């Protein structure tokens, strides 16, 4: 059938199962926006294109489906860049569609022309410049296929205005996409499984390092089976949280810079590390030269370029994690490693005594208490989205989800401003989930304009704004390593309650722990987006912490419980 390029775009999106597109119009995508009116796809008009990219990302992470963002050429497209880089670092499948100037004027510095395939080359899994309507159908199909297959990631399709306007004979071709140079499903050689099984069966003190690959490959059940059979404890990366239920007795919690002492100790003492779909980010290894010195290492990852990238491993297995574990399982022997597990858990109970959750608050409101209360009053079942900073680390420590895809956070790029738009995307992907955004007073203001989008879409996101009056995480580094010289970190904030009210939404304020429960309940019961501003202790720190350049288990520990505080109660 003869269609315009613009019509083909919406047809392909519909065929790919897209229900929602997050976008912002402009000159170079006008033809596509015009055709939108004849499509059944819902378009969410954001307030800034960065928001569109993060919403698509949040949508993708919550649902496992591909998220879609749309923008015009030039400034619209460059505004997507932070969101694309964020998705790239965390392997999130999104497709970004941007308008481009007419193909005839490309390269002439035409109005609102930016070489976007050039700009996004290192931050996309792949990208395309489409200059004719005929190419549009096949390219868009490829884009979705590349975005979601193998190790997922962002794909950008830059479409010239004449390609949108051009006419083409279009038929939906549902044969599998053929890309001769793209081979996302690799499988390891049989010898590798053999060697892995031998190492595992002989290990006395092994630890599993569970990354986001567990969740992306849907390996949750088989991982659990593997853990129960072998009695091997699991440490999680930030993005791996939820791969094994937090309540599982062998789930030790998060590893790395703000991981708990017993977790990092276990890694340092281990005789075997089983890296499952994780990539040894420097935030989880600490100094490489002293990392897990006694451990043999098995690395399973779908991306061959991750094997031996930063940590030299003894066995590298390329493949989908779930598939790999299924192949591996029959060769794995049942294990009793109780001595090793007890040794780790002993340290846990010692460290837990310093845990702030067990500490009296002395009339003050601590962020960790707030997050722990939130966990309690939502039965640990909410879908949590965070921004970046101290509140993010406290969330990873104190909101312990039992389900996958229930903690969404910008890990690799650490993008402030991610939280609010990502939470909107997550809620729109999973309308039946109770979505809570935990966000700092700094990062919230980076994308707070999307409150208007919440109102516009009638989306209910519950926002726990952790207001400590500082760019807290940076202030913490200044306190520890720069002699408390707080350069650029104090926040002069607006009245957050009035700010949300100005958007026609509900704002609440919490200054004491005693109010937390009822305010959380009130937020849950109120229609529409609600923000609770928690005015917390200002100069509070995230513990434990591995200082930069230190060995993974040399940590700044949580101070001993303050005896004066304790005696007040």
């Amino acid at each position, binding site marked *: 059938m003869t269609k315009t390029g613009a019509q083909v775009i919406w047809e392909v999106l519909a065929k790919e199962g897209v229900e929602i597109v997050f976008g912002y119009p402009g000159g170079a995508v006008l033809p596509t926006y015009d055709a939108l009116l004849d499509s059944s796809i819902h378009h969410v008009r954001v307030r800034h294109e960065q928001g569109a990219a993060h919403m698509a990302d949040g949508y993708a992470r919550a649902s496992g489906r591909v998220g879609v963002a749309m923008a015009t050429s030039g400034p619209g497209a460059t505004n997507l860049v932070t969101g694309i880089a964020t998705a790239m670092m965390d392997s999130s499948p999104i497709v970004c569609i941007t308008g481009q100037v007419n193909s005839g004027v490309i390269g002439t510095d035409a109005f609102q022309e930016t070489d976007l395939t050039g700009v996004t080359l*290192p931050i996309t899994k*792949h990208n395309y410049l489409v200059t004719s309507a005929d190419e549009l159908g096949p390219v868009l199909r490829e884009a979705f296929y590349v975005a979601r297959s193998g190790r997922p990631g962002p794909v950008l399709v830059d479409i010239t205005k004449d390609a949108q306007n051009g006419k083409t004979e279009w038929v939906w071709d549902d044969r599998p996409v053929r*890309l*001769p*140079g793209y081979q996302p499903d*690799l499988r390891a050689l049989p010898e590798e499984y053999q060697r892995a099984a031998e190492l595992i069966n002989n290990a006395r003190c092994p630890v599993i390092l569970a990354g986001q690959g567990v969740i992306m490959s849907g390996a949750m059940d088989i991982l659990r089976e593997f853990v129960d059979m072998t009695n091997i404890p699991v440490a999680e990366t930030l993005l791996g949280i939820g791969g094994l239920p937090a309540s599982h007795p062998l789930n030790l919690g998060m590893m790395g810079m703000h991981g708990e002492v017993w977790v990092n100790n276990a890694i340092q003492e281990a005789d075997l590390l089983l890296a499952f779909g994780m990539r040894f980010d420097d935030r989880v290894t600490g100094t490489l030269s002293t990392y897990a010195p006694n451990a043999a290492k098995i690395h399973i990852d779908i991306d*061959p*370029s991750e*094997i031996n990238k930063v940590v030299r491993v003894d066995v590298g297995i390329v493949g989908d994690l779930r598939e790999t574990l299924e192949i591996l399982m029959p060769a794995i022997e049942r294990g009793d490693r109780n001595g090793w597990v007890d040794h780790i858990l002993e340290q846990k109970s010692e460290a837990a005594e310093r845990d702030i959750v067990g500490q009296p608050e002395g009339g003050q409101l601590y962020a960790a208490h707030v997050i722990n209360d939130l966990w309690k009053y939502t039965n640990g079942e909410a879908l949590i989205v965070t921004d970046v900073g101290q509140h993010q680390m406290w969330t990873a420590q104190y909101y312990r989800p039992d389900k996958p895809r229930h903690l969404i956070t910008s890990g690799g790029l650490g993008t402030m401003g991610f939280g609010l738009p990502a939470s909107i995307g997550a809620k729109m992907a999973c309308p039946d989930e109770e979505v809570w955004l935990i966000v700092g007073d700094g990062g919230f203001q980076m994308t707070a304009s999307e409150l208007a989008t919440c109102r516009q879409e009638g989306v209910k996101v519950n926002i726990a704004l952790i207001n400590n009056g500082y760019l807290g995480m940076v202030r913490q580094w200044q306190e520890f390593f720069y002699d408390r010289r707080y350069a650029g970190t104090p926040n002069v904030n607006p009245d957050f309650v009035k700010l949300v009210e100005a958007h026609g939404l509900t704002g609440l304020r919490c200054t004491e722990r005693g109010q937390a429960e009822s305010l959380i309940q009130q937020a849950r019961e109120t229609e529409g987006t609600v923000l609770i501003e928690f005015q917390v202790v200002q100069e509070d720190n995230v513990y434990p912490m591995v200082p930069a350049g230190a060995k993974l288990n040399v940590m700044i520990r949580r101070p001993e419980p303050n005896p004066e505080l304790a005696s007040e109660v």
Partner: protein
Amino acid sequence: MLQTFTVYVEDKPGVLNRVASSFRRRGFNIESLAVGHTHKPGISRMTIVVEADGFTARTIEANLYKMVNVLLVENITYDDKVIRELALIKVRTSPENRLEIFQTVEVYRSKIVDVTTESVMVEVTGPTAKIDSLVEVFEPYGIIEMVRTGVIGMGRGPYAPTISPEFVEAVVPEEAVAK
């Protein structure tokens, strides 16, 4: 040490940029890069030489392999192979040294492709070391200008590289190939 890769790519705009960018981004310095068509339409072949240790070389291969437009990557460093480079060297001559230069060209089995009263242009092919050596010999006469293609390489024997990405210690599942 110097690592030599053969890379088959789709002949599309921007592919060279993608390949080059993946080196730049990771801080690998390209010693030499040559690209041209193959006998198959739509497929180009690159020969890339990079200074890297064995582990880095694997990372490079895996990263190239990941690119959608890259069809095949082979590290031919350790293979039995033919490596060639072509150079054009314009040398200053005088009536006194002209004969000497002609003899040198002879010895190196190179060719004179342009002559003026004050200069000759020499075309030479061979492994990098041979060309380096000729350049060194010409240096005292005065090199006016010079251009080199960068190396191209090919494994010996009756085979061409096949699609078996063993460098990642992995195989393509049969079902995937059958598709």
